[in-house]
């Protein structure tokens, strides 16, 4: 099986993005970690930014706190039929912040609100993740 990441994309699919999307298809959110310096990446990188040799999988916790938001009303041409949509950056753990859409939310989001990262299947081959508001 092959999988693509996100609602739309242009980059030809390098192995790391395919693997990431396939993990999301299995409802797993897996970044990676440098075995030398412990630096963590989500989404994953092919190699550590400090040029150490080996990386290992690093599954992230999927509950975060909203740090920034926007609702896109006038979208890029290739996303126009989906607008308006909300996008948020939330922090899963110190140093790991994730940008994703918040599809259920059209009211003004509130900084600090709790969100859960969930897998979303866009079409037959396309997978992404979305933020879902956690009710108090």
């Amino acid at each position, binding site marked *: 099986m092959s999988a693509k990441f996100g*609602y739309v*994309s242009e980059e030809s699919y390098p192995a790391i993005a395919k693997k990431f999307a396939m993990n999301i298809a299995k409802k797993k959110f897996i970044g990676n970690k440098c075995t030398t310096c412990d630096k963590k990446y989500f989404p994953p990188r092919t190699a550590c930014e400090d040029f150490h040799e080996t990386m290992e999988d690093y599954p992230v916790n999927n509950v975060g706190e909203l740090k920034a938001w*926007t609702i896109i009303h006038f979208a890029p041409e290739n996303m126009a039929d989906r607008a*308006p949509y909300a996008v948020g950056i939330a922090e899963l753990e110190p140093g790991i912040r994730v*940008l994703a859409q918040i599809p259920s939310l059209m009211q003004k989001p509130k900084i600090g609100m709790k969100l859960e990262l969930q897998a979303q299947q866009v079409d037959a081959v396309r997978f992404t993740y979305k933020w879902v508001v956690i009710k108090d």
Partner: protein
Amino acid sequence: MSEGVSIVGGGHAVFGKRKESGLRDLAHEAVRDLFNTTNVSKSDIDATVIGVAGDGFNGQGSPAAVINTELGLHGLPTIRVESACATGTAGIISAYNMIKSGLRDAVLVVGAEKMTSISSGEATELMARAGDLRWEFPFGVSFPGYYALIASAHMAEYGTTREILSSIGVKNHYYASKNKLAHIRKEVSLEEAMGAIDIASPLNLYDCSLISDGAAAVLLTKDSIAKKFTDTPISIKGIGQGTDTMMMAQRESLTELKGAQRAAKEAYAMAGVTAADINLATVHDCFTIAELIAMEDLGFYKKGEAGQAVLDKQTYHDGKIPINVDGGLKAKGHPLGATGVSQAVEIRKQLLGEVESERQVDGAVRGLSHNVGQSGQFVNVLIYERSDL
């Protein structure tokens, strides 16, 4: 130490939706203005640096070559530079380096962009591609969207209001109405600005800069020959640069541009001045929130205090620190590759007392320009000074 570098002339095409003019025509118009207003001729030029940010707007590959030829300068050395919306100042810095190293004596910098040949939806997509193509573009974040994310965080942290952001738009439209080179010469009221349609909330239409066609040019020379071309060279006193992560989600802070803070620190140190010594600034207001955080990143105001200064009109031409009294990217327009060069042309004219009287900053001797690529992935800060006084 080798001698310094000065700007001896500037030229500017009228910004706008220039239906009848292509990229090369706009560049020619800007350079023609330079030749018409300065004692410079083609034979004085040793090389050109040409800044064009995008290839997709008009389909012309290798735009530097077409511009160099249109200027009749084919045969001379040229290079193209690209640093997204900071392309123009990247060009000025490149020319500075060429002269400072002793390689060239006089270098023409041209920044140009033809953006309105495609629809605004297509232009929005093209600019969204300047976000991280692998990990953030797939979520449909537009360029206004990135700055809207910053605005939401700044609002939550410092109580920045809709009124503060709209007041920046109102000011910039007011000054564009006085600037004969501006794209939109129309004032807007605070009420109109606050009630405009959402583009990427919390940002609305009057928070966003324009998609414009335009070009600007400056001639840089080594100081020892500058007086041959003008009695009033403008000296490049400080240059600072900074960058940040490609992905917005990976930024250490979402309420400032770290690259701008670093660039400002470097530029002030090189010029031997502080923020308090700057008489006016052109800052990269691609969005109103960008002007607000620039006021803080450049050290004109402490974090969280720029908003009140905006409401108090301290950034008008007769205020404490005049900012974007040419209309800014917001209303003068933002032809990407031209913008940083346009900032230099504006500061030069301000320092020479040559702009329209309603927006002239009296007695200005030192100006700063802040030019940002994308959402802070490139930042260039330059400090210009009159050297004849």
